[in-house]
């Protein structure tokens, strides 16, 4: 599965994207975040305030309880500031 990061989430994790193989048992976006936080300080820092970080599955905004399903690309990013 491809993970992509933007803005200060990208900076804190130290990379713009990565391919990961998820262990069994990860069902929701929140499960994925919990697993990522266990992978190292940089992830812990990026998700230190989990409720602030937004997620999208295959280019569509989703909530933490969204199912990972057969997602190809999951993105994490701060609240948007475009316009």
């Amino acid at each position, binding site marked *: 599965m491809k993970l992509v990061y933007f803005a200060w989430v990208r900076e804190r994790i130290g990379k713009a994207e990565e391919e990961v193989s998820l262990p069994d048992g990860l069902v929701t976006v929140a499960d994925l975040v919990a697993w990522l936080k266990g992978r190292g300080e940089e992830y812990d820092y990026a998700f230190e305030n989990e409720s602030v970080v937004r997620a*999208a599955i295959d280019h*569509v*905004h989703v909530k933490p309880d969204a199912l990972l399903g057969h997602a190809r690309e999951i993105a994490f990013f*701060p609240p*948007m500031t*475009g*316009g």
Partner: protein
Amino acid sequence: MPALVRVQAEPFDVAAETALLTRGRADIGAVVTFTGLCRDEGGRLDALELEHYPGMAEAEISRVAAQAEERWPLLGLTVIHRFGRIAPGEPIVLVLAASIHRRAAFEAADFLMDYLKTQAPFWKREHLRQGGAGSWVQAKAEDDRAAQRWAEPPSGPDGGQI
């Protein structure tokens, strides 16, 4: 008619985009354009840098534009959002809405801006005149409240009673 949506690094030409939408037509009575420009914040900023999520940016803007076209009787809709480094005084975003009457054009442009601010995957970072990259611009609660103005009225038995 689907909206014209573009996400690009280059500046845009409001007059050319307007002509593209209106030229040769005699059914449009109202055109509203919104242009968002980069400010220097009292001389503090050297530029804004806009990071975006390629692919999702276009998809999300197109989705919101389609909502606007469903909600208002539009005769044309153009949305252009730039990314990359943008200097003070330069345009960042354009929304152009055309309709028979002014109310639909005003409301659609207003709606689109509120949703672009809160839903389109763009992030602004400041570059300071005194040198170096500044901080990421923080999202404003005020923008979330603005977007909530457009929530559809409840459709239950008491819907529309307020």
